């Protein structure tokens, strides 16, 4: 068994080989997992907001989907991954309270997931699986041995994507 490396809110980490990356209790934030199957380098971004250009205080790059993914990829490449081999899996973006969908608060989970998909398209990275939306929290873990992304929740069992 390798090490389990924790990724906090507005945070990103990379790992390799037998290690795994975990985020506990993902809500309306998104957990974007990137993986290179050849070098077995994995990366996990726990972003809170879709777009750094919409926010005045944007110095914390890992807080945003757009800037967070740029940094995550450059760290993974430094660790031996090839950008052209990266595949993405996406989880989170839930709506934790039953707010109106059109409200700023109600739509944030969806907007985070959409922003992740758009940024991945721009980067030319294929999204191969996702478990997003709905109304519950998720604990996600990316295993760098094989790229499996395990998703646990309260009362909804375990999913592997």
């Amino acid at each position, binding site marked *: 068994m390798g090490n389990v490396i924790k990724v*906090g809110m507005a945070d990103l980490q990379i790992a390799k080989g037998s290690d795994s990356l975990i985020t*506990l*209790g993902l809500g*309306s934030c998104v957990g974007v997992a990137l993986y290179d199957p050849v070098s077995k380098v994995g990366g996990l971004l726990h972003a*809170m907001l879709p777009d750094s250009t919409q926010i005045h*205080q944007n110095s914390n790059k890992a*807080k945003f989907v757009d800037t967070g993914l740029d940094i995550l990829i450059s760290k993974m490449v430094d660790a031996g991954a090839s950008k052209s081999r990266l595949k993405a899996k996406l989880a989170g973006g839930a709506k934790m309270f039953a*707010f109106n969908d059109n409200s700023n608060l109600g739509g944030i989970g969806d907007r985070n997931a959409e922003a992740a998909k758009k940024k991945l398209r721009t980067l030319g990275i294929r999204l191969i699986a996702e478990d997003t939306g709905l109304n519950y929290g*998720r604990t996600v873990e990316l295993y760098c041995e094989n790229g499996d992304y395990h998703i646990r929740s309260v009362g909804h069992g375990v999913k592997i994507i």
Partner: protein
Amino acid sequence: MSKLNLDQMNDLYADVLKELGNIGAGHATTALSQMLDMRIDMRVPNVKLLTFKELPSVISAEDEPIVGIFLLVESDIAGNMMFVLRLSSAHYLVNRLLGRADDYDEPFDEMDVSALKELGNIITGSYLNALSELTGMRIAASVPYISIDMAGAIMSVPAIEFGKYGDKALLIESEFGDEVMIEGYFILLPELDSYDKILASLGINV
């Protein structure tokens, strides 16, 4: 644009917000005491400015379920408010309210959830009333929204709101109870302009 940056909040603001927290939580305790018809004491609340790394796990482990009750705040000030309880505390309060044995801890049914919403409504409502009296501003709250889920997932909602303005969140921790002390957490999320209004109404120049 507000001049106040939460990340650079000085001692004066912290003291004012703490005092607001104190008075609000005091009113909330009185309301709870009347609702449950028992004597409830409250300890002086603790106001904490936390980073996003600290916030999700301050109440319990990030993947353990907690109860969050969320309200939209409007009128003279705009923003949101959340009241958070550990699952064990929520069970205790619901059991008291519904006249059950203290150790009953079956999963919450529809009736329990509506009792919890009502508790949240009373607690946050009296909190906001105190704030309204103190500042002379009209403050109205929406119906309560409830979520029972992983602590990290529930805390992500206020964290995202704070995240628009900075890298920290403000948490008011209060402890109340009789023989069993219950910890409840208030998270006040006024929009930044509203912070200025609250402080200005108290005669503090931002």
